[in-house]
């Protein structure tokens, strides 16, 4: 079970990222606990300034922009 956090204060790109991650995990059959982090203090606590960002098990794997599907699937394989 992977803990995945989507960092972003509710912008359109953040929602798109949430969806891509959700779908990619499902396609790869990976079990994940997905959480949105919208609090700016917490987002910046990860050192991220450009949202959306993605954190997997406490590690920032992506920041700034919607990640592409292929990259996201790479995280879950």
């Amino acid at each position: 079970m992977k803990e995945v956090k989507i960092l972003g204060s509710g912008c359109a790109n953040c929602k798109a990222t949430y969806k891509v991650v959700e779908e990619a995990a499902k396609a790869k059959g990976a079990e994940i606990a997905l959480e949105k982090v919208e609090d700016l203090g917490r987002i910046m606590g990860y050192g991220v300034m450009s949202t959306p960002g993605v954190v997997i098990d406490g590690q920032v794997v992506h920041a700034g922009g919607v990640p592409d599907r292929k990259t996201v699937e790479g995280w879950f394989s």
Partner: protein
Amino acid sequence: MFDTLGDLLVYRLLGIDPASHLGAALHFFVMDTTKIFFMLVIIIYVMGLFRALLSPERVRAYVRGKPEWAARSTAVGLGAVTPFCSCSSVPLFIGFVEAGIPLGVTFSFLIASPMINEVAVVILIGILGWEVTLMYVAAGLTVAYVGGLVMERFRPERWVEPYVWQIHMGELKMPEPDTSLAGRHRYAMGEVREILRRLWKWVLLGIGVGALFHGYVPEEWVVEHLGGTDNWLAVPGAVLLGIPLYSNATGVIPVAEAMLGKGVAIGTTLAFMMSIAALSLPEMIILRKVIRWPGLALYAGVLAVAFILVGYGFNLLA
């Protein structure tokens, strides 16, 4: 090439009279749309390939810990090469404050960033030529540098929202980027998609406004009222009109193209471009999350005065 395409499509295929208002406007629209989007895709792709697009995290790392003049020059320079989304303004502001970067330097960065970026510069050269580009960039850098200095004199710390000082930023540990050719290509394509998705509306809007201006505004009227230095109200008028209006630096280029084509004075055009790109109501509302209204009003005032000076300066030189 794009000119010919415009001729073919508008005059031949649609059979619209080149001498008509509609013909001139449509031709402008077709030519600029194809030309600007063609250039956008290529520039962003190439820059993505070299990973030349800086992230705000890296900018912060470069600026922090430098002596003030160096920090300010770096901030202005990096602001000018980073096509940030204005949605990153707030985290950027907080990140700079947290890194101990002086507020004046942060303001310099915030001024430079929306006004100048390398994508817009290449398109400026392509559409308006070297001279205008050089003037725009030099004036923009100066305004950013001096504007930040002036802001600092007013001790803007007192207008920063208190919560900003409490946020602690973590160290960002990102995995190493994939530097193989395939990885670079994938990254570059991602950047093209991302930046185009953000820009296309503004660019189309800018081209549309430019096309209407080009097709329908009579040249004699423009030359008489906005052409020379006689009308002292033209420059402040352009700046005031530009404040509530917003477009990004790329979107204002076709508008400037149409204005210059009809004979609007260069200083008036430059002041209008800067005011639209750097000062806007949406940007103010975003920045309101970190700075209270008096600070924002001062920010807008300092910039407006700077743009008016830029406008008068270039009009007198011309």
